[in-house]
């Protein structure tokens, strides 16, 4: 099972800190849609994907601690036991 973890604002707004998704060898984009089904909340899609289905800026996504933009972005293949972390970035100083 892949684990999807939510941090800070996303965790608060979704009301859940993580969810496990039974899957293997699917794209991150597909995983996000499965996550939406599992938690019954489409906010997770709105935070990650824009209206054209492309990655939206502002939410950092790490797969096993590596930013997806160093991988294949939303086409990154997610395997069972992968950990996907989603968090808004605190930009201020």
């Amino acid at each position, binding site marked *: 099972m892949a684990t999807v973890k939510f*941090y*800070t*604002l996303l*965790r*608060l707004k979704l009301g859940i800190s993580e969810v496990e998704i039974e899957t293997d060898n699917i794209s991150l984009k597909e995983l996000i849609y499965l996550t939406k089904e599992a938690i019954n909340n489409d906010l997770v899609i709105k935070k990650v994907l824009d209206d054209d289905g492309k*990655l939206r*800026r*502002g*939410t*950092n*996504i*790490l797969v*096993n*601690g*590596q*930013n*997806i*933009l*160093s991988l294949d972005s939303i086409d990154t293949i997610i395997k069972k036991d992968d950990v996907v*972390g989603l*968090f*808004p*970035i*605190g*930009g*201020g*100083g």
Partner: protein
Amino acid sequence: MIFDRQIAFWGEEKQALLRKSSVFVAGVGGLGCLLSEILVRSGIGRIYICDKGIVDEPDLNRQLFYTQKDIGRKKIDVASEWLSKIHNYSEVIPLSIDIMADNFSLPDDINGVSDCLDNFETRFSLWATLKEDLFYVHAGVEEHFGQILTIKKGSSSELSDVFANYDDSIRTIPVCAGSASVISSLASTEVINNLFLEPKLLNTLLIVDLSDFTFNKVELSSQDSESS
């Protein structure tokens, strides 16, 4: 003696290490004010404070050095006046320079950098000028959450990779004194950890959410580290 209470905590040897240390603090705003004060009060030998900003009214809710009478003054002037009043064990060097400028370079004598900046474009420029093996403690804050991280050139993730999906388009970042002060206190602790050569957040992102006091650590990896 000024440092008695902390020498009782971490010992003479570490206090002497701090006295010999030099840190570059980028930004003296919501994070950099308290952080640089903590570094001075801890007895760091030399502290560069770098900011090209002017004190503005909306700064006063969280930027602890500034008062209404300072509005319109250079932040580093007010900041260095305050820091220099605390004691004379630390040399405070104010720098009113643009980190984004082509000719920007970090001082040669620093042990590392404390990133208290308010946008990622400038952070990436600063990171690009860092020499290998120097520490870079990143801190960022927004609303009631923030993150802290230590990275080093050549031996950890790249700053621009970790925060690759940043969004600098929001120009007025919502933030308050409580969250900025907590994040800057945590970042100052990690700067001192680095000066003791004992970083606790090397390649590990600490995500702090004060809305319900949740702290999470996320270990980072990079293509380089995975292939090595």
